[in-house]
């Protein structure tokens, strides 16, 4: 099996030759290859080259066109500060506290900010791997982008003090995600990952997710599928047990579960949805954690051996500055072999 076949089989709960191995390696690919993160985030060709090199080294089953959570906000007008070895921060948000998102339209993926670089990266990666490996596009989810429009603290207060205005921010964010996602699919992505860290119950209670986010995520997933997505992956980190069961109604193919949720609970909450997780991402900073990571990965593989529908991954991004030995331990546990994903 190749990487794409392996992931599609896991999504369909069919047998695989080994567990699909999809570590969440984004900026790590740049740092490991000796590049500045700021350059990686601005240059689609460099992003593609680093992702392909990382996959060749580790034998993982997917490459990611993920840059950072601020890329859509920047395309909408936010000002960012960039760094050599960490992700950018929003220093001036899109909207002032009193402003309304209803005056904004989704940015054009072909011309706004760094969005075209992502489309370029997707095209290059797809041309390189063809159907042999999963090319995963990435979009920022509605809650995360809506909170970035104002800054998180301001946005959360608006969500309570002026709910209708926050709904308009969510609607703009959903439309932006669909537009950017559809463009990545047109550029060649097989899969679309919806990263929505602010949708976590650690930020807002599960009722908030159910009433305000679930309907928009369902619309987004349906729209991405209509735009050609073979796989839609909802990636929310943190203590997601109160919302995981809702993912089935949203219609996602793959659901991330973080270290807060154990494998048995995740299986109980989403019995027919492929699960990806759940290693603790900060463990990868510690070279001495490699044996522990390997043991935990093996235990996870065992926990899903009967059920299937599992992708070995971390519960959140593996940090850019992670230790290579710790990342390799994960690949070793999956039985992945370097250089096995060329077309």
């Amino acid at each position, binding site marked *: 099996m190749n990487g794409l076949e392996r992931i599609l089989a896991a999504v369909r709960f069919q047998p695989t030759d080994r567990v699909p191995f999809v570590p969440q390696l984004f900026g790590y690919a740049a740092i490991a290859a000796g590049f500045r993160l700021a350059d990686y985030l601005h240059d689609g060709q460099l992003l593609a080259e680093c992702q392909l090199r990382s996959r060749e080294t580790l034998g993982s089953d997917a490459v990611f066109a993920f840059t950072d959570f601020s890329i859509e906000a920047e395309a909408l007008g936010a000002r960012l500060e960039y760094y050599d070895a960490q992700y950018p921060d929003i220093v001036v948000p899109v909207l002032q506290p009193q402003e309304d998102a209803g005056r904004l339209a989704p940015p054009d993926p072909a011309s706004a900010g760094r969005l075209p670089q992502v489309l370029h990266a997707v095209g290059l990666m797809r041309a390189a791997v063809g159907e042999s490996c999963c090319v995963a596009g990435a979009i920022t989810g509605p809650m995360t982008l809506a909170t970035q429009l104002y800054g998180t603290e301001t946005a*959360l*207060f608006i969500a*309570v003090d002026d709910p209708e205005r926050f709904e308009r921010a969510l609607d703009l964010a959903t439309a932006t995600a669909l537009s950017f996602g559809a463009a990545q699919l047109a550029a060649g992505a097989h899969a679309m990952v919806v990263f929505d860290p602010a949708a976590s119950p650690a930020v807002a*209670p599960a009722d908030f997710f159910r009433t305000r986010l679930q309907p928009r995520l369902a619309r987004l997933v349906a729209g991405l599928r209509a735009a050609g997505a073979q796989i839609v992956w909802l990636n929310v980190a943190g203590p997601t047990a*109160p919302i995981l069961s809702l993912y089935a109604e949203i219609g996602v193919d793959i659901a991330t579960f973080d270290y*807060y949720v154990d494998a048995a609970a995740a299986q109980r909450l989403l019995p027919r949805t492929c699960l990806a997780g759940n290693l*603790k991402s*900060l463990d990868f900073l*510690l070279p001495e954690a490699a044996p522990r990571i390997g043991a935990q990965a093996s235990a996870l593989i065992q926990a899903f051996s009967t059920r299937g529908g599992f992708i070995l991954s971390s519960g959140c991004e593996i940090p850019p500055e992670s230790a290579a030995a710790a990342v390799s331990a994960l690949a070793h546990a999956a039985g992945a072999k370097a250089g096995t994903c060329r077309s």
Partner: protein
Amino acid sequence: MVNAGPVPPASPANGFSLLIAALLAGDHAAALAETRQLRALGVPPEQIVTAGLEVAMGRLDEKCTVEQFNLLEIMLVGRAVSVVVHELYPEGIQPEKGRATFVIATLEGDVHDLGKNIVRTVLLGKGFRVVDLGRDCPVDALAAAAEREQARAVLVSGLISTVVPQVRRVRAALRARGLDHVAVVAGGAALKQLAPADLDVDYVAETAFDGARYLENLLAAEEAAA
């Protein structure tokens, strides 16, 4: 959040119940109204802190398990607490009226200060004096503030992994100023994934309340030993 609504208290006892309900509902307008009514009844600020704010924070602490802790609800309560504290102490809580002083910051390289702000509010609500150095704070500035303010502990919050090396420098910076007795507490989405030994800190808090409990226990143990 339910709008508790300002209802005139017939007595301070009733007023405290209404204040606590307003705080827990995250209704800052009602909390402010109840505070003003209590003051009008002659209740001193210190009593409003101990019998109002601290009781409300205690109940919130009981509710906020790791599974139920969420920023939005805590922020709303925090806003209500801040409004009340500002009403009672427009120029800030002075050291002699507080229980102990803590210095709090988000360290250099991390500009995400929402979690730090939550911790500050929880500690204020429990009657502590908190010196907030803001975000992107150099480690040496944190240590200098701990010395200047005679802090019992410094608290550092981190959302992103790249701040870890800065956290590991805090202990040495304190030691260089002879502040070995100052406790170091870490928290935040990134830092709480690591053990105290990985960060060279005394405690890694799972939530803001967990951190506050650690500090209260630390002070209680010292008082018992004194």
